[in-house]
């Protein structure tokens, strides 16, 4: 028996490589899974908020989305603690030079597909801080921005309207 076991050890395995997948079947399956996922998960959005130098006014109004009046989670939208769990980066502030790298690294840590939403006047173009030695002057100069929500700060309902547009 020892000899037999030894032979098994040194002989190459009999198990064959997996067959190449049937392209047509894969495409069909992907469509089905995609539809199922959209049906089950499609109206869901995980948001990582990044303050890139705001005055904290936008943060207050983003926070308000979680209160009982706006109840953000009923739309399947929720804030997550890590960019690795996020579909959307919600960025505020004029992007200070001291925050630029942190913002870029947060974006790099977010898996695709991903969206960037810039909230507030200074996230658009630096707002009243534009021209300062300490700011880059808006999110679009650093990351590809998909949606901008204006306001100083935008009201919660305006932020909500913007986020719902991403789900439509």
């Amino acid at each position: 028996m020892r000899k037999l076991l030894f032979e098994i050890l040194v002989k190459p395995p009999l198990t064959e490589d997996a067959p190449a997948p049937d392209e047509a079947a894969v495409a069909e399956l992907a469509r089905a899974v995609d539809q199922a996922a959209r049906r089950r998960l499609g109206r869901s959005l995980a948001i990582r908020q990044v303050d890139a130098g705001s005055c904290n006014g936008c943060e207050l109004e983003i926070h308000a989305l979680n209160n009982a009046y706006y109840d953000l989670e009923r739309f399947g939208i929720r804030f997550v603690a890590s960019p690795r769990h996020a579909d959307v980066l919600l960025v505020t502030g004029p992007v200070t030079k001291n925050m630029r790298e942190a913002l870029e690294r947060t974006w790099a840590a977010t898996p695709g597909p991903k969206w960037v939403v810039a909230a507030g006047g200074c996230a658009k173009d630096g707002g009243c801080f534009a021209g300062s030695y300490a700011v880059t002057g808006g999110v679009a100069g650093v990351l590809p921005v998909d949606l901008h929500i204006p306001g100083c700060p935008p009201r919660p309902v305006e932020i909500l309207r913007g986020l719902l547009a991403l789900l439509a």
Partner: protein
Amino acid sequence: MSEMRTPVPDAPSLGELLAAGRAVPGHRPWPRAVVDVDDWGLAAECLTQGSVTLLGLWGEAEAVHMALLDEPAAAIGVLSLSCPEGRFPSVGELHAPAIRLERAIQDLFGLEATGLPDARPWLDHGRWGFRRPLGNAERAAGAAPPYPFLPVEGEHLHRIPVGPVHAGIIEPGHFRFTASGETIVRLEQRLGYVHKGIEGLMTGADLARGAELAGRVSGDSAVACALAFARAAEAALQVEAPRRAQWLRALMAELERLANHFGDIGAICNDAAFSLMHAHCGVLREQVLRAADRSFGHRLMRDVVVPGGVAHDLEPQGAAAIAAMIAEARRRFPPLVELYDNTASLQDRTVGTGILRPALARRFGAGGFIGRASGRGFDARRAMGYPPYDELEFLVPGLEAGDVDARVWIRIREVEQSLGLVEQILARLPGGPVREEIATAHAVHEGMALVEGFRGDVLAWLRFDASGRIERCHLRDPSWFQWPLLEAAIEGNIVADFPLCNKSFNCSYSGHDL
């Protein structure tokens, strides 16, 4: 940190310190004097002895200024030292609360604080492309240098770096914890991430632009910062806002205080995993903001307080909206207070956690609920008695315990006082105009103000040049003196209690980083 030294009986008074220098004309409402190096050092001695409290320390291209408060006399004065050689004796060498302010002066103006025990950069992360942006600016290229955190030695210590991007919807800052097991041995903060260069933008700005910037120093204190700026400008230009405007400003300041206290009381409980309070307090906060919106056209009442008065009179339906909100809060808040008081699992987290000792609060001149929960009763509304608070009835609550629980209770009591203040203001709101036009002055004027925001006293100092533009404006958020105290209060607590302690302080990143 060492305790305060015993005051020596012959320590000079604030008046004597000012009298030793050359009085600067046209600085209002409190005196400013240019002193020599020796008297500058003497003032630093007085700070260590506790006979005066540091209200602010800021620079300009060739001078440094320190604002001092004589608390018992409620007197304020500014000492200035010209530094033609680009250096001044460090106040922080003797008086720790000045250290970060001097690090900021070094970063922004390039003035050297000789003897400063911690000379690492503070606001300058090496990414502006310039050194000394507000002084003798010099191009600085190349990669940002690594920041040398304070060394720690000892067995079984581990470090936990947190931030600048945090897990919640919070402002950015870096916290470097050193822990032994679960116990925090040291917290070191690194701030400056949201430095926007506001003081640089202020230079050369006209009055309207200055007010716009001041209202964006810290969004949660939009009213308080704008009010400090407006009062400083009015003091400089010798303009008085109409009586109705002063009452409307106080109305907005109290609404801002209510909104922040409601939000934070709930958020502190949420950080102890008690989300019920958070949900209910969030509703109260939202109701305040909606009433503010209906009354002044903006939820955070931004850009409403302007030099000369207010930009927006109370909307016709505003008084009724605010009165309804107050009535609702009077009905809904007491059961929440009872819930806080009677929930043992919540009290278990807040009582005895994050203790700030009264001696340290006094030494740092800690303002707001942080100071008042640790035995320092200063409140600029009461001490300075600026209108209309001199005509209104309110109590300044005080506690000694200095823990998270005490800070929550101070905020609860302040909510009650603010509800009463809003009722008084609505009942007695004077009529008349709300804005005084301010003509451009063509002479150098300096002004200063200290107002009580929800977080504590906000200081504003400014100088207009002969063309009527702002030559220099400094806005000191209360957080400057509160952030370092969080480092002290957290020592010996467990890492898991940090969010709770941090929220109970709720310092502003933006207000500090400017």
